[in-house]
């Protein structure tokens, strides 16, 4: 009989952990963004999370793709330059033909320092805008790629606002810890 309190405590602990995990994996509450299926074929890193925001809510339709890349960053110097953003931010998943619009900028994403850069990309339906972000924590990287039909500033603004949401910051922090 004395084991029942132990079992009850275990259930409570499991319930608590599940609640935390559920919170971390939950889609963002901001109504304008909805999670979509990962739209790319499998490559070296596992598929992760993709989101879409409609033109009515974001001013232009924007899609954002995020995934951690473990062990893919210089452990000491982090994301060093724009070439590194070109290489690692997953913009090439959207289209291998992309041209940077200008020099990138430093950016902070979920308390990680990195760089952001805007691109023109060639798609079957015509030219679009893409945003690449690479932010690092120790030797690991959070790669973010976004695409939209509007001007670069609009797509970048919508992307960064989305990444600043509490839900996404919580998820990125957890994902970088392998959770």
């Amino acid at each position, binding site marked *: 009989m*004395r084991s029942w309190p132990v*079992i009850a405590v275990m259930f409570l602990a499991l319930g608590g952990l599940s609640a935390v995990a559920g919170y971390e994996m939950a889609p963002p509450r901001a109504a304008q963004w909805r999670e979509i299926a990962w739209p790319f074929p499998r490559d*070296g890193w596992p598929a992760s999370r993709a989101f879409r925001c409609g033109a009515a809510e974001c001013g232009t339709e924007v899609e954002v793709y995020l995934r951690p890349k473990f062990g893919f960053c*210089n452990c*000491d110097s982090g994301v060093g330059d724009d*070439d590194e953003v*070109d290489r690692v931010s997953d913009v090439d998943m959207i289209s291998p033909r992309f*041209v940077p619009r200008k020099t990138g900028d430093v950016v902070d994403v979920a308390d990680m320092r990195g760089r952001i850069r805007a691109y023109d990309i060639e798609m079957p339906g015509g030219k679009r805008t893409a945003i690449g972000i690479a932010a690092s924590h120790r030797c690991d990287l959070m790669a973010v790629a976004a695409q939209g039909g509007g001007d670069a500033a609009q797509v970048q603004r919508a992307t960064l606002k989305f990444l600043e949401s509490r839900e996404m910051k919580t998820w990125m922090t957890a994902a970088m810890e*392998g959770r």
Partner: protein
Amino acid sequence: MGGRVTAVCCTFLLVLLADGASAQQKIGDPPEASNMRLVGTSDLQARSAYQPTIHHQGDKWIAYIGHHGGTDDIPDPVNPMTDKAEPNGTSIVDVTDPAHPKYLRHIPGQEGKYESGGAQMVRICDGKDLPKGDRNAVYMLRTFGSEAHEIWNVADPANPVLVTRIGGLKDTHKNFWECETGIAFLVSGAPDWRTRRMTQIYDLSDPAQPKKIRDFGLPGQEPGATGAVPTELHGPISTGPKGNRVYFGYGTDKGGFLQIVDRDKLLNGPKEPTPDNLKFPEIARMPLSAMNGAHTVFPMPDMPIAEFAHDKDGKSRDIVMIVDEAIQNECGEARQMVWFADVTTEARPMLISSYTVPEASGSFCERGGRFGSHSSNESMAPVYYKKLAFIAFFNAGVRALDIRDPYHPREVGYFIPAITAATDKRCVTIDGKDRCKVAIQTNNVETDERGYIYAVDRANTGLHVLELTGAARAVAGLP
């Protein structure tokens, strides 16, 4: 009933914990071995070790060992020979008596920790072999962290002298140097290229007067390119003017591929780094899975295959052994392993077999640190070439493979060194906190013409000199 449920749960938990704990190495545990034996050790001043190169120098055998940078805890270990803290660089060890290696000299490398500092790579050429070298010199080509390549005269290995330096780079890595021609394929990060690692080809036939031949890489990596950037180079191996091929391994643990290049076209073709010119010397590419990289690509041309001996065609095959590098601790990625490619029909290279250490044979995912392959020996000395290959497998130590039939490689021995007080921890993040374990991390391996095997440890455990015993020794035809 409740008591029995609790007892079963607790027993299950204890079994799990005990199993995990038993997998971990403890100081004082003996090494684990099959058909391999420890001959001697050197602690290498507890420096994280990368590439060993063993050179027969007069009547001596000298091991030159490159090092990664220092650790967070000890960025610059003290060199007991100078009593000074020195950034990790190159260790020079006399292994003439392999049972009693004698540490001769440490040449400091670039300040920095882990992959950011040190002097990882070493190659050696005798001056008498180089077309324009000083006949009395022995030249050591090494990387200097991420910023330069250096050549030292190590004719007196205890007193090396710097000869020249090729600097201004953003990264370096696993070079290859042809001693008979002096042509060097330097893995560099040229500042204006879009990748950390590509190839700078130099004529180092006179090491005091380096002459640049060209920059080489994949279309998309060159200066001014746009769009997707192909994965970075890890290292090349050339078969020289006679073989006329250079095998390049790209990728480390992801998106890797083997590139086969015509050496003559590479050296003498158009050199301006345009997409067409970069493609000109390429014969073929063979992609691996996106989950695997190509760290070491080791060519073994014209291997007779016993199974095919009575076939009218294809009795011998050109084989390339491809070794991936595991980079994540505790199996935090897809398995990195060894692959064999038949490149006899060069335009259509094909993977024919693979090898990995069975994880369950040592619960290696639970031991701590990396588990998976990293590199092979690169010596082409007859004692082992095309017969046995030695693979550094991190926490699974060194594995000896019988590769006489590369369609069916077979493990014939292994040696997992014991850890020591110097062995550094390896950590993973669990719930935001570091959880660390201590395990051997056999990083690289090389052999000498006598048949000794030299394994070095990434986690600061030093150098282990090994020899084969039993059935493995018989494969090599050693007495």
